[in-house]
């Protein structure tokens, strides 16, 4: 079943594939982001309630969506790395962690920028904000755990275990925080219920969501390839590539 995947367990093949992926997805991401942002920020209609400040959603929403998505893929990669003992997947977990952390930080930052004019405050202990903040700490934990080992391989495996534990915990954290919020401050904050969004606003948003995904893939592949080169730096194929 996995026969067609087997060649890619070889670092050299994996390097070539990820560089090819990176070359393919990077332009798509850049063009998509340009189109989406220009369309969203300049041509899409203004929100009737929030006027122009709602335009930040074209950055906020994709970052927030993929901050969760990246964690999910990181957890799955970590699980597979532990179960099938695939070293390359361990490297991919570490390739993903800082990118996910960056997405989470962007989502938090743009969210608080958005919150200031809309809610009148930079920060509220709202369910989504809280679970996003905890997600950021989980990302940082994965990376800090990796850094705290002298031996890279052990550190990578430990990071995988933590990623898997985090993945089990993310739904629990999410729902408990939601429950906490409704318990404390039910109706006082009218959360942004997903408005039945107009198609003219939906399209640039969708474009941005997809291109942020492409950006994630491209960055991950690039980081993965670089890490691979570092891990295999004593091998012949690396020297050949670097010598070119």
């Amino acid at each position, binding site marked *: 079943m996995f026969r067609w995947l087997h060649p890619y367990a070889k670092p050299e093949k994996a390097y070539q594939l990820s560089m090819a992926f990176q070359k393919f997805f990077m332009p798509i991401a850049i063009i998509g982001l340009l189109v989406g942002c220009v369309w969203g920020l300049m041509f899409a209609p203004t929100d009737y309630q929030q006027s122009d400040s709602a335009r930040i959603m074209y950055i906020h929403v994709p970052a927030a969506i993929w901050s969760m998505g990246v964690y999910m893929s990181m957890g799955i990669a970590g699980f597979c790395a532990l179960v099938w003992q695939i070293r390359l997947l361990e490297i991919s977990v570490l390739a993903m962690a800082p990118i996910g952390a960056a997405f989470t930080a962007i989502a938090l930052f743009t969210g608080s920028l958005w919150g200031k004019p809309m809610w009148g405050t930079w920060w509220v202990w709202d369910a989504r904000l809280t679970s996003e903040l*905890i997600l950021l700490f989980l990302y940082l934990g994965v990376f800090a755990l990796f850094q705290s080992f002298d031996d890279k391989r052990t550190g990578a495996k*430990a990071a995988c*275990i933590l990623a898997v534990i985090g993945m089990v915990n993310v739904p629990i954290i999410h729902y408990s*925080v939601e429950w906490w919020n409704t318990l404390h401050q039910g109706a006082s904050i009218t959360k942004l219920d997903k408005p039945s969004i107009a198609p003219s606003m939906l399209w640039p948003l969708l474009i941005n969501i997809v291109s942020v995904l492409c950006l994630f893939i491209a960055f991950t592949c690039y980081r993965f390839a670089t890490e691979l080169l570092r891990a295999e730096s004593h091998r012949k194929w690396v020297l050949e590539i670097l010598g070119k």
Partner: protein
Amino acid sequence: MSFSKFFVHSIKRDLQIAAIQKHEFLLPVLFFILVIVLFPITVGPDGKLLARLASAVGWIALILSMLIALPRMFAEDYENGWLEQLFLSGTPHSLIVTSRIISFWLLYCLPLVICSFLLVPFMSMEINLWSVLVQTLLLGSILTACLGAVASALLVSSRKGGGVMALLLIPLLIPALIFAGAAMDAAQQSLPYTAPITILAALAVFSLTIAPLATAQALKLNMG
């Protein structure tokens, strides 16, 4: 040796070792008391405010003193090779870890829960509220011991890992804190508080089921 015999024996061993090195397990207790004392001094001796904060202080003190105690959970046995011998002995790894979690809970968590009685005089907490707090602390400390076992096992061979413990443990503990807080809130308004307590119990049981597997995995990893 049968599994149940091994289980009892290994808990007994941990308790005996602790009886020899009394200062080891008294330190977290002292730390717990010190944290509790810090709050009235920094906030001021206003009884009403202190009573409002008391349950939160109990929880914060518990977590902070766990951060002190947890790094020692496997460290000694890891360094002198006992743990490696046990892992080679053919006893199920999760059984070894579970017995260690339970003896850790008996040695480090239970004394803290008992010491939380100091909140009653120090922070003018009502005694019936304290009884609810003890329930949340009992269940929550099981959860903390389980998650802490994983974190402590992950970090057992790393020399730089001291500060990382907090980053690993605290985000994972948020659900427990939320449900404990919900129970305390309900109790303060004399509403029924069984629901959050049961959820907390469910979380504790769930983590006691899953955590030994992850801990054993993490320890094996560190033995290389």
